[in-house]
C-alpha cells in the first residue's frame, strides 16, 4: 500500500482514502489500545479518539518516518491521556516512589499465543500495565516514561521491575500448566 498517496488523498478529504487508511491501520492499532485498557469498549474508545486525532493532524505527518509508527505514537499518547482522564484508572495510576527492584534474571520461554500474552499484560494493575507496555513493547526508556507519566525515572524503573516479575511469574505458571498432563492441572 502506498502510504504517501493515501495520506495525500486523505488530506484532500477523499472519503475512500480515509476509510482505506482506517481499515489498514485499525487492526494494527486495536491491539495497542487493547493492551493499555481493561475492556474492549475502552480500547475502542481510545482507538476512535486516536483516529480522530490522526485525521485531524495528518497534515503534520512528515513523510520521512513510517506512517504506522507515527499513528502508533498517537495511539499510545491517546491511551495514556484516556487513562489519566478516566476515573476508573486514576486511582490505579497513582505511582509511589518505591525502592529500586533488581530485574529478575528469568527469561521464560513464551510459548503462548499473542492474544494470551496481551491478556496477561492487561491483568497487571493499570500502573504496572502502562509502564510495562511503554518500556517492553513500545521501547521507550525510563526517562521518557517518567516525563510522559509525570513520574520520576526511578519510580518507572521500580514499577517496571515489579510488573516484569509479576508477569514472568504468571507466564511460568502458564508454561507449567501447559507441561502438566490434563489430569494434573
Amino acid at each position, binding site marked *: 500500500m502506498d502510504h504517501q498517496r493515501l495520506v495525500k488523498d486523505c488530506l484532500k478529504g477523499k472519503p475512500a482514502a480515509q*476509510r482505506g487508511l*482506517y481499515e489498514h491501520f485499525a487492526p494494527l492499532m486495536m491491539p495497542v489500545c487493547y493492551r493499555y485498557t481493561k475492556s474492549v469498549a475502552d480500547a475502542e474508545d481510545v482507538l476512535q479518539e486516536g483516529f480522530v486525532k490522526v485525521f485531524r493532524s495528518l497534515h503534520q505527518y512528515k513523510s520521512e518516518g513510517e506512517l504506522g509508527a507515527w499513528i502508533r505514537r498517537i495511539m499510545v499518547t491517546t491511551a495514556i491521556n484516556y487513562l489519566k482522564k478516566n*476515573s476508573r484508572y486514576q486511582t490505579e495510576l497513582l505511582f509511589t516512589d518505591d525502592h529500586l527492584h533488581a530485574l529478575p534474571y528469568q527469561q*521464560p520461554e513464551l510459548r503462548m499465543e499473542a492474544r494470551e500474552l496481551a491478556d496477561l499484560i492487561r491483568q497487571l494493575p493499570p500502573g504496572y500495565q502502562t509502564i510495562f507496555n511503554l518500556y517492553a513493547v513500545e521501547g521507550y526508556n525510563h526517562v521518557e516514561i517518567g516525563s510522559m507519566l509525570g513520574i520520576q525515572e526511578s519510580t518507572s524503573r521500580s514499577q517496571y521491575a515489579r510488573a516484569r516479575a509479576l508477569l514472568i511469574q504468571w507466564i511460568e505458571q502458564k508454561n507449567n500448566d501447559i507441561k502438566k498432563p490434563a489430569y494434573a492441572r
Partner: protein
Amino acid sequence: MQGDFEKQVRSKMDELKMFPSAPVWKNIEPQIRQERKRRRAILWLPLLLVPAAALTWWYLYGERNELPAPTTTGATQGYNAPQQVQAQGQPGPSGMPPAITPATQQRMREQAVASLLSKKAARARASLNTTGKKRSSLVARKDRNDAGTGQPGEKQILSDVPARTHPGDVLVPADGSEVRKSKPPANTNETGSIKEPGSKQEQLPAATENSVKPAADAIHAKWKFGFRVAWGLSGITDSTAMFRQQTLFSSMSSSPVSGVAGSYQAPEERSTGFTTDVFVSRQVGRRLSIQGGVSYTLLRSKRLVGQQVNQDTAFGNRFSGSVTVDQFFRSAGGAEEYTNRYHFLGIPVVADYQLFRKIPLSVTAGISLQRLIASNALYFDPASQVYYHDMNYFNRTQVFGEFGLNYTLLERETFSWQLGPRVMYSFSDNNRERAGGRQHLTFAGISSKILFTKR
C-alpha cells in the same frame, strides 16, 4: 537495557491483530467530516467578507461621486464677495470700479450668511472629500457660473474676487475709497465696510475654518449604525456533566443496555453557531460608545443518540404534563449524532471602550435579552430513557452576557471594519428542570463588525 524477554514480548505483540467493531468507524467518520466542513467555512468566511466590504465601498463612494455639486460656493466666497473688491481696482466694463450701494451690500451679506448656515453640512462634506481638488475646481466653476447670473455690476466683483480674505487685502467701500487693511476699525460700518467687532459676521470666517477640519469629526461622529456577524463554536456548559459522564462511562464498561439503573444521557458537545445583529451606536465619550439593536443567533450543540423511532408516542413530564411526539430517539447504543439547534431573536445592549488612544483596539461588553423562537433540541427523559423534543422544556427568554475585543482593520470617513474574538454566555438556565442541574448556552467565535457613519 532491554533483554530477550522484552524482545520476545515485542515480537509476540507485533503478531497480534484485532478488528474493532463497526460503530468505531461510524463514530469517527462524522467527526472528520465535521472538521472538513468547519475548515471549509473558515476559508469561505474571509472570502465573503471581501465582496461585502467592496460592495459597501462601492455603495458609499459610488453614490457620492454622483452627488450634484453644491449650487452655492463656499462660505468664504459667499461672505466676502460683497465686501471685497480687487485692491488694485480692476476696472469694470466702464473702466470704473462698479458701484455697490450699502443696501445691496446688506442684501448680499444676508444672502451670504443664509447660504453659509444652510450649506454648512454640504461644505463640510465637500471639504472632506478625498477627491477634494477636483471637486473644488468643479465647485469654483459652478460658482462662477452662478455669479454670472447675478445683478449687473455684481458679476464682475463676484467672479473676480479671491476665494477668501487674506491679511493685507484692501477692502473698498461702495464709493471706491480704500478703508482698511485686514483688521478694520470698529466704526467702518458707516462707510459700507463689513466687519463689526463681535458681530455674527465677524465670527463666520473662523467657523469656516473649523468646517474645513477634515475626517476626524466624521470618524468621531456621535451616531453610527452597522452590523456584526460572529461565527464560531457554541455549546452548553453543564454543571452535572462530569457526574453524568462518569456515570455513562462506568455504565458502558459494565453493561450499556437500557433498563439498567443510572442515566445514559450523553454529554452535549460543541458545534458551530453564529450570531448577527444590526445596531445603532452612540458615542458618549471620547472612547466610549453604547450600541443597541436587534440580533439573530443560532446556537448548536451535538450529542450521540441511539436508534430513531418514528411513531406517535405520548410522554409525561413535569413541563407539559403530557406531550405527544411523532419521533424519539433511544439513549442506549448511542451511535447517531444529533444536532440541537437553538434560534434566538434578541435585543443586545453593548458598551464599546477603546483601550488605548493610539491603538484601535476596543473592548466590548454587554448584555442581551434573547427569545428562543425555535428549536429542535432534544430533552432526555430519565424515566423513559429516551430523547424527544419538547419546547416547554426550554427557557424561552434568556439573558446573555457578551464580551469581546475589536481591532479596527480599516477606518474611513464613512465606515470602519473591526474584527476580534467574541464570547457569549447565557446567565439563564437553558432548561426548566431544576433537578437536572443548570445548563448554560455558550458561544465563542470571531466577530466582524462594520460601522457606518451617519451623514
